[in-house]
């Protein structure tokens, strides 16, 4: 693309806010009652974070990967792509993230959590609770959008990404390779909402900053804890 500096973010927005939110309404109707199953899986994920259990890292990784795959196939490829041809590329990213979660969490069993929660753990739990409970309510309760347009964990990209950032913030050690795609989505999603003048645009960038801060904090703490040679 020549003269790229002459393009504004709004030049890349192909649809109106009305069309974008209406898409969630049609999508929610099309996949009903899958929302109930996904919310139940989200609740199980929070419960697993709160109490130590065998296989908890693996189970959490599987649940998150299922959410990313579901959002890729049912939302991005079957709905979002009808108004945004870039959604095909987004879907590839979502599938890659699901594979990375399976690889890290299930095959390597490297998604571990501290027995006792610390600041990062509490932050992660907070992000998860936000993704599962608060985020779906913001549109209907604060912004006047219909309930049918609510964005839910495991169904829609934004809450799925925020919940993933919560899990990664709560993890025992930073997983930079798992943070890359969620943080990228936060930038893309935040820019989309900002361009549409949606008042909730800061949520995604803020979630990314919180998750990155938690990862940096854990990195520094681990460096400080290493014995000197």
């Amino acid at each position: 693309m020549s003269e790229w500096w002459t393009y504004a973010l709004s030049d890349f927005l192909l649809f109106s806010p009305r069309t974008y939110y209406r898409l969630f309404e049609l999508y929610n109707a099309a996949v009903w009652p899958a929302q109930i199953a996904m919310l139940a899986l989200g609740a199980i994920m929070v419960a697993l974070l709160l109490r130590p259990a065998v296989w908890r890292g693996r189970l959490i990784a599987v649940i998150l990967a299922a959410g990313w795959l579901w959002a890729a196939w049912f939302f991005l490829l079957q709905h979002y792509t009808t108004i945004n041809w870039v959604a095909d590329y987004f879907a590839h990213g979502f599938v890659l993230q699901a594979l990375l979660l399976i690889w890290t969490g299930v095959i390597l069993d490297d998604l571990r959590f501290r027995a006792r929660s610390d600041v990062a753990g509490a932050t992660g739990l907070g992000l998860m609770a936000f993704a599962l409970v608060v985020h779906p309510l913001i549109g209907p309760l604060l912004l006047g959008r219909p309930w049918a347009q609510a964005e839910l964990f495991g169904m829609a990209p934004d809450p799925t990404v925020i919940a993933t950032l919560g899990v990664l913030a709560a993890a025992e050690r930073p997983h930079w390779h798992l943070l890359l795609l969620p943080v990228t989505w936060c930038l893309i999603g935040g820019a989309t909402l900002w361009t549409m003048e949606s008042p909730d645009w800061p949520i995604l960038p803020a979630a990314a900053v919180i998750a990155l801060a938690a990862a940096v904090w854990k990195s520094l703490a681990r460096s400080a804890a290493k014995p000197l040679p």
Partner: protein
Amino acid sequence: MPRVFTRRSLLRSVAATGALTLWPRELVAQRAPILTRPIPSSGEAIPLIGLGTWITFNVGNDPVARDSCAEVMRAFFAAGGRMIDSSPMYGSSQDVVGYGWKKLGQPERLFAAEKVWISSAARGPAQMEHSRRLWGVPKFDLMQVHNLLSWEAHLKTLFAMKQEGRLRYVGITTSEGRRHRDFEQVMRKEPLDFIQVTYNVLDREVEDRILPLARDRRMAVIINRPFREGELTKRLARHRLPDWAAEIGCTSWAQVLLKFIVGHPAVTCTIPATTRVDHVKENVAASYGQMPDSAIRARIVAHVEKL
């Protein structure tokens, strides 16, 4: 779709256009045919106001929104409009135009303006054929190279298609003032029927070189982004419509902005986009009545720049 153009229809169109400037506004509003300008390369008359589809027609599979777009098209055709412009870049817009055109019984007055937008020249014909199937038209009236992307290769294909009768007109597009130097060079080199550029009361760069060149080269000019994607109408809505707007038959800021554009003698038509039936009616109404002369156009610029 493609309408056979005759000398008689041209004379009728020109006579109607000339007579309108003399008729009382009320009479014009009620009786007059829609104002048109001829495409220089053929003389075919095109109404001054067309219909754009950027953002507004990209509604995906939403059945309510698709029907709403079809109603916009119905009102557009009923008011005398002809040219609808889209692009493969515009998401589902092409499909939605095709849905509306079919739903309305495929009105013959449609002037289908499309774009080819792909960097691979070899894949250009396949993209155009895909677009044609989405519209459901036998052939496009106008095919434009979108934003000059791979223009040299695509223009070869388009001129060959025109030669074979698979296309009626060939053009190029740009928007928001991008690549004007390259654009000018293509205009000087190629026998284009149409160009499409951005022009509105605040973005007037094309007045200096592009529009005079189009006139010299006898090219039709389509104007995109007449409202700066709604920014201008939103901004002006806070201000009272000046009294002189009535002198050119305008009852809204949108009409003032559109008449400013089509009042330029080098402009053939403009393609405002909308999702609303009342807005499309209001827009097409700018194709009727008195057109602003250069003095009134200068007054419009001065007034809007002050606000």
